[in-house]
């Protein structure tokens, strides 16, 4: 392979080794690699943001946009400038408005996403298997419905598991209503199943990554010595 390729390969090879040295605990090699990594990632992101977001979205409209767009772009421009105040301790209060903007927008997005994105879709999906006509139309069997029942129970039980409120009455320890308690017990089971499955998934992913790394290391070594 040509020399730049070789260099890059070697870089990758040694960085990999440096990270793997973490197997023996935190050590200078690992630290150096991680610090470098953080720096490079930050630098790359900065370039990307400048090059692919701010340039086309903020500067271009300002320079070549119509009067209308220019006027419109002034708002984010101003807010962005205020935001720069956050770099200094003295001016940092200037940026509060910009942050407020982001937070407000974020809150709205979160609400919208939660209601339209998750609440409705998931609730409907839970009830879907019970719409027998559609199930039949979709070639579903009794098993589909049974499974639907199971998922229904699981979903409700899981929801119940998280219920926070309790009432403290004289002569009793603070407790959730009985039905909630039993549901919560069931919910625990389903939560356990879900999290276990996800953990297994993470294992699978990370082991694939491990395999890929190991084979890369081996390949590089072989390539170097052949």
């Amino acid at each position: 392979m040509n020399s730049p390729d070789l260099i890059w390969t070697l870089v990758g090879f040694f960085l990999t080794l440096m990270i793997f040295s973490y197997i023996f605990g935190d050590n200078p090699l690992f630290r150096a690699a991680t610090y470098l990594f953080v720096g490079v990632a930050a630098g790359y992101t900065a370039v990307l943001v400048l090059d692919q977001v701010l340039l086309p979205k903020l500067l271009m409209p300002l320079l070549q946009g119509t009067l209308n767009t220019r006027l419109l772009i002034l708002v984010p421009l101003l807010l962005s400038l205020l935001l720069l105040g956050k770099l200094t301790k003295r001016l940092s209060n200037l940026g509060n408005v910009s942050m407020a903007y982001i937070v407000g927008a974020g809150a709205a997005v979160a609400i919208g996403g939660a209601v339209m994105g998750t609440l409705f879709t998931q609730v409907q999906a839970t009830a879907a298997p019970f719409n027998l006509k559609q199930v039949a139309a979709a070639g579903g069997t009794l098993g589909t419905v049974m499974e639907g029942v199971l998922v229904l129970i699981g979903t409700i039980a899981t929801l119940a598991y998280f219920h926070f409120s309790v009432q403290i009455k004289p002569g009793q320890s603070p407790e959730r209503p009985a039905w909630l308690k039993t549901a919560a017990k069931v919910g625990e089971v389903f939560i356990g199943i879900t999290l276990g499955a996800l953990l297994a998934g993470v294992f699978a992913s990370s082991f694939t990554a491990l395999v890929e790394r190991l084979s890369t290391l081996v390949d590089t070594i072989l390539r170097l010595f052949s």
Partner: protein
Amino acid sequence: MNLGQLFGLIIILISAGLILYFWLLDKPGRFLRGFRPMPGFQRLRRAIGLSVEQGNRLHISLGKASLVNPAGASSLAALAALERIARMSSLSDRPPIASSGDGALAILSQDAMRSAYRLSNSPELHDPDRGRLAGATPLSFLAGMLPLVHGEHVSAHVLLGNFGSEIALLAEAANQKEQFTLAASDSLTAQAVLYATAQEPLIGEELFAVSAYLLAGPQHTASLRVHDLLRLGVIAAILILVILSLAGVL
């Protein structure tokens, strides 16, 4: 506006009204109302106290979710908790460090800590550098946090917000160092790995209860109560939908 949008709007308005009511107008009833005990918070408070007494740091990680996307809610919840925790530990000789994986979040963490210090009458102690962007990408965020485990006299990590599975590396490293970790995430994957690695994992929406459990203020308690009411509402809605579907109405 279609039916879904209408329902959505109604739900939002109702919840907003309920929060306002519980926050501002509610009087305690004949019975004390509380929240189910979660030992994690008991231990968190103790960990905070210990870190203060020992002059150790507290590390609060706010996750990597950008505010302007649906997962941003976890970041907002984490911020509320951060301000509270910073207040609780503001007099430590080594004030807490907040790390985040998103720019806006990092800046907000600085603001939150500043207000925490202001509220504890010690604004001069605020050091914006303690609210850091640990890394700009998910894994560099983790890589940026790891040194906190191995240096900087951190005795407890509070991981709140949106993380990837990689967060397990931090939790496991903290275990090695026998540092306290309380972790709550809105990401299912993170919850799974944290349940296996963190000392005090909180599951699912418990993330959104943190501020209320840390007594951050009546508005937080109020919103948690509304959260509970909404949960019951959702359960009811599901059941109704199922019945309607079975009845063939839908």
